[in-house]
């Protein structure tokens, strides 16, 4: 009986994790877009690094979706 409940809890957790990571990908996309826009407005030496970081962040978010689907 307890095992059934545990199964449901894990299933709900997995669904929430997938939804959360998908929302996070959208957020990461917004970050990429915003950094690109602001870099056009204000440009300096450091902008390239920031753009690179925003893309790395987006890749990490996409990887998280895959990991959530595969590992959980």
């Amino acid at each position, binding site marked *: 009986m307890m095992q059934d409940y545990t199964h449901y809890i894990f299933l709900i957790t997995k669904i929430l994790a997938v939804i959360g990571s998908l929302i*996070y990908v959208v957020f990461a996309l917004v970050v990429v877009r*915003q*950094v690109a826009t602001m870099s056009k407005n*204000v*440009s300096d*030496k450091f902008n390239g690094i920031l753009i690179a970081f925003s893309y790395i962040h987006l890749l*990490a978010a996409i990887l*998280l979706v895959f990991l959530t689907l595969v590992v959980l």
Partner: protein
Amino acid sequence: MSRAANLDNIAPDDAVPPASPPPHSLPPKKKKKVHAPSIPPEIPNPPLPPSHSANLRFRQKIYELIKGKTASPLSAFLARPKVFTFQAREDSEEIILVLRRHWFTNLHWIVTAILMSLAPAFLQYFPILDFFPANYQFIFILFWYIITFAIAFEHFLSWYFNVFIITEERVVDIDMYNLLYTKFSEAKLSMIQDVTATQGGVSQTVLNYGTVLIQTASEIPVIKIERIPNPHLVVQILQQMRAEEEQEALDGRLQ
């Protein structure tokens, strides 16, 4: 009479009279035939003149005020940056100063990010995830670290892109409140009416940062620059810039 004075006496619609020879000038000599070379000698382009008011004493005083200040791209007080630029900048417009919030204002999110990074190490003392299997715990920790990075990155972006720029012609305020809301405002130096600096509290007094209020006669009545380093120096620089603009207006050289 100088050329500038002549032009001052002519109305815009008047026909410009042909240039007359000076009263005591010699009669024009007959042009001698000279065998000119077929290819005219190349005249090197003269170097671009410096900014129209760069030689003014006001500007020199400003340069003295900001002498020795850092030009690092991650500085909160960028004096005459070489690489920094902004979208609405005109070609010959010189940037005098770029200001960001004082580094001390970043301390709260830096400490938060460090503590959040260290938090998973304490899970062995507070086993709140032990209910879940190892693969779930791994994903949760991954989530935790990526969110920690996002918090730190967003705060850094907010600091980095929140700039106040003083150029030789205007002041520009670029605000990035969060990832979805940004604001761009500017005012001509000639429109500035009053500049006030305020410092309050222990940290502001000790670390020399504060708020500068600029009252303008333009559409945006007040530009507020919060928690910037050396606020009194900024006020001094703005006063000098205003004096320079007034002098230019008097000289009839206002662009």
